């Protein structure tokens, strides 16, 4: 059986949630031990390695000033040097994993499966994986040839860890085996997102609008409803892309993380990037004209209606008291 590796993401030594999730996913591929690969520099890296050793039986540490910020172009080279041919490499499907995974699979000359949400079965030659297509409207089983190894990126939140980790793993310093860490892409800086006019993270009730609002002019009906409810208007990404609302109102992995008590999803399909910004198990009401839209799988209450008709009526009823 191929060797298994998990690339562990951490920020200033604090492991990403995916660190534990990758171990759960790897266990579905094989019963063999998994090696965690942790990169960085200095004391932060040591903290991360210690945490990873609680989850994984073996930890490979790569310490180098060039690894202080995870530049996928550099880490790809490192992994190609460090990982034996035919290995299975697991990475989180986040903005770093999307940067690293595809190119890594080419350089390791192996299969690539992105955004895996389930693993049905696996043997030495193939794994049957579950993915979503068409914005979550269809699920698919994929047969992935893993006989020559594979790179898999795993959707955050899909493989929840239940056990408290106590692997008692060994940290091995592999810094000497990193190889050439130069790259034709140089990290400059991270520019923090700007704060907006309202802080949607402070509101207990959010009226959130998605592409179903159809037109900039219709944003007004959501604002009226929010006002009647004493709520704040938030939105999905396409509304920000269209510049109908400020970026600071966007809920999701590339926007704000919110923890409201009540969340009204109006004309939002429920992509994992959107739901990734919704924490604290709010009471979710989804209004959508398509009864098959994925958001109905996660909402508490679903209403199949056209929001352009539904929202004004609801506002009126609330105003009447």
């Amino acid at each position: 059986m191929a060797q298994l590796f998990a690339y562990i993401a951490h920020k200033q030594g604090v492991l990403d949630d995916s660190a534990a999730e990758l171990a759960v996913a790897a266990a579905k591929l094989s019963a063999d031990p998994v090696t965690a690969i942790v990169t960085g520099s200095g004391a932060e890296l040591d903290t991360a390695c210690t945490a990873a050793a609680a989850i994984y039986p073996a930890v490979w540490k790569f310490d180098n000033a060039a690894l202080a910020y995870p530049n996928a172009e550099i880490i790809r080279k490192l992994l190609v040097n460090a990982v034996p041919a035919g290995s299975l490499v697991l990475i989180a499907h986040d903005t770093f994993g999307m940067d690293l995974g595809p190119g890594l699979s080419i350089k390791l000359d192996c299969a690539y499966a992105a955004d895996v949400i389930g693993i049905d079965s696996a043997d030495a030659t193939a794994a049957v994986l579950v993915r979503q297509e068409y914005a979550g409207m269809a699920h698919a089983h994929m047969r992935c040839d893993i006989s020559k190894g594979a790179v898999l990126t795993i959707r955050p939140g899909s493989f929840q860890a239940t056990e408290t980790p106590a692997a008692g793993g060994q940290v091995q310093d592999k810094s000497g085996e990193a190889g050439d860490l130069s790259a034709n892409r140089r990290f400059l800086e991270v520019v923090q997102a700007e704060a907006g006019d309202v802080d949607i993270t402070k509101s207990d009730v959010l009226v959130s609008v998605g592409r179903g609002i159809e037109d900039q002019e219709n944003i007004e009906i959501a604002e009226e409803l929010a006002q009647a409810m004493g709520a704040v208007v938030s939105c999905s990404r396409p509304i920000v892309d269209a510049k109908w609302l400020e970026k600071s109102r966007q809920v999701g992995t590339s926007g704000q993380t919110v923890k409201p008590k009540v969340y009204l999803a109006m004309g939002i399909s429920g992509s994992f990037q959107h739901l990734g910004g919704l924490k604290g198990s709010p009471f979710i009401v989804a209004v959508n004209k398509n009864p098959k839209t994925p958001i109905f799988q996660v909402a508490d209450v679903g209403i199949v209606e056209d929001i352009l008709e539904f929202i004004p009526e609801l506002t009126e009823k609330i105003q009447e008291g």
Partner: protein
Amino acid sequence: MEILVCVKRVPDTAENEIEVKADGTDIEQDDLVYSVNEWDNYAVEEAIQIRDKVGGAVTVVTVGDDEAEEVLRREMAMGADSGILCSDDAFEGSDGRGIAAILKAEIEKGKYDLVLTGAQADDGAGQVGGMVAAMLDWPYASLVNKIEAGDGGSITVGREIEGGNQEMNEIQLPCVLSIQTGINEPRYVGIRGIRKVASVEIPTHGAADLGLAADAVGAAGAKVKRVDYFMPELGEGAEILEGSMEEKIDKLIEMLKAKGGLK
């Protein structure tokens, strides 16, 4: 700057209710509305804006069947200078790696400084751009939401990372970038614009033109294959409110009051 933009024709998820066929072999194709992958429009718009600033030309390329030509014309109506259709029976059934191999071969036929793709397409893999870059040994940056011209040999790009923060990078040319939505506002294309480019010649390149071995692409070369589509076994799912609009609203107001959503 010579820029190549890779575009894909996909079922429009904003326009269609995608349904899986009962036997799971495919999605229902009847009445499907196709369009350009949402992300690719942003990539083409960005390419046009760069060209208009620094000069050069924008070429759009797609790997697909004859019908895929329509997306090339749409992007040419937006302002791309020319289009290339990569099409061959041997390409059918390619996985992401196969598509990347075809695009790599096409890129090597030209002399491009910059290759743009969308961040992801209908199957949400977000793989083709990074694969092409690695095959060419060109640097790559994904999820790009800002491009600034540099000194000629390099450019500065912003990558969108978690929380809406932006990771700035300097990247050497030639390079491959995958473009994230929101980087610009893609211009509108009217039916008249499309008519204007209706008769422009679009060359078709097949496996032989691109020097591709049949087993490197198509179903034979695919390491990842779809077995079937299926309907997942769902948990509880939402309680769907029934009745007239009024009844639904009354019910909802009651629930919102109980959950603290209404005072």
